[in-house]
């Protein structure tokens, strides 16, 4: 993710990825928040702007924004645009907790097949926290 001309933020899509484009946008914005690329209160590009920036279907952008809003990560202020929420309140949504659990299960299984010990996996996780990090994590 790079910051460029006029403070506009450029996200990227990989059309070859099996991850749907709306999900790619969601993940990049969330990662951007964790990394501090997006600060609370930052304005996101409008649906029209982002769809043109990436040459993707505006419905795809809308879907990404709707999902992010549902998750409480961004908010739409009427007539003003879409913003990163000021104070994000983590919610323990059971659906998403379940998904996270599935993801971790995948990681544990993969680690086993790669011959990684529990300790080594924990170290990897700690490194990631440090790398993505900042004060947010």
């Amino acid at each position: 993710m790079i910051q460029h001309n006029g403070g506009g933020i450029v996200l990227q899509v990989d059309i070859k990825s099996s991850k749907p484009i709306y999900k790619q946008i969601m993940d990049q914005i969330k990662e951007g928040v964790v990394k501090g690329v997006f600060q609370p209160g930052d304005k996101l590009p409008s649906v029209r702007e982002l769809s043109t920036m990436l040459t993707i279907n505006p419905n795809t952008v809308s879907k990404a924004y709707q999902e992010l809003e549902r998750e409480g990560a961004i908010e739409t202020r009427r007539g003003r645009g879409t913003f990163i929420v000021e104070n994000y309140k983590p919610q323990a949504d059971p659906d998403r907790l379940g998904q996270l659990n599935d993801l971790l299960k995948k990681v544990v299984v993969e680690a086993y097949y790669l011959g990684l010990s529990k300790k080594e996996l924990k170290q990897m996780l700690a490194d990631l926290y440090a790398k993505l990090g900042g004060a947010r994590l």
Partner: protein
Amino acid sequence: MKIEVMSLYKTFRADTVLADINLAIEPGQIFGLIGENGAGKTTLIKCITGVYQPDQGAVYIGGKTAYENPTVKVEIGYVAEENQYFPSYRICELLSFYSLAYPRFSIDRFYELNQIFGVADKARVKELSKGMQMRLALMLSLSIQPAVLVLDEPTSGLDPLVKREAMNLILQEVESRAVTVLISSHHLSDLERICDTIGIIASGRIKAVHSLVELKQKMRKLQLVFSQDAPADLTAWPEVLAVEKVGRIHHIITKQYSEKLLNKLRQMRPLVLEEIPLELEDMFIYAAKEVQP
């Protein structure tokens, strides 16, 4: 406006070019039509735009029949593969013609678009190159402020820069005016970026209609290397669409990808199990195979 095609048949002499076509495209949706040469794409498009009369079945644009119906045709922006304009008209004369034919035609919009497309308005249509004629067709179709945009191979003959601009303009129409878009293209990577739904046409029939999100979820390509022999019945697995073998490397194309399938494969202790990218073009080829009896 909604595009609806119901049990459409079209025959030329003894050739059935279209058979039992059923489609529905909602306002604000972008529908990509893909198929080989001669599959019936252009014939279908000409039925939808009201150029051809269906032999059986019906085409409705916003609930009304398109054929020989000017009140519907003024709502349709149609960019054909080869566009027919009066060859000796100058562009500026063509604009006067358009403002008479299309009530919402905006000459301001045309010149605004021409800032991007740069077609000399004093030139005669016949003096324009193929690419310039395509630019002209796109500009005219956008300037009539259509409710429905039908684009037959619109990106052929456009250079990459103009192509990107043209796609963005179409996306803006969808965003701001909920225009319904039907687009056919051989450039599958273009469709992949912009379409909600993809329809595959072969031998005059719609073989499959998929949302792209759904298609990407279900259809994946996995690369495997087995330490022993691969399971013999792999091709018969319900989740598997196709298996290709190169030496010890197996490529599996899934039709129902799931975590369960991965676990089933992991249990065979493959030396390698990884997902590799699958482009729309491959999906198209495999999906076309799947539907064959």
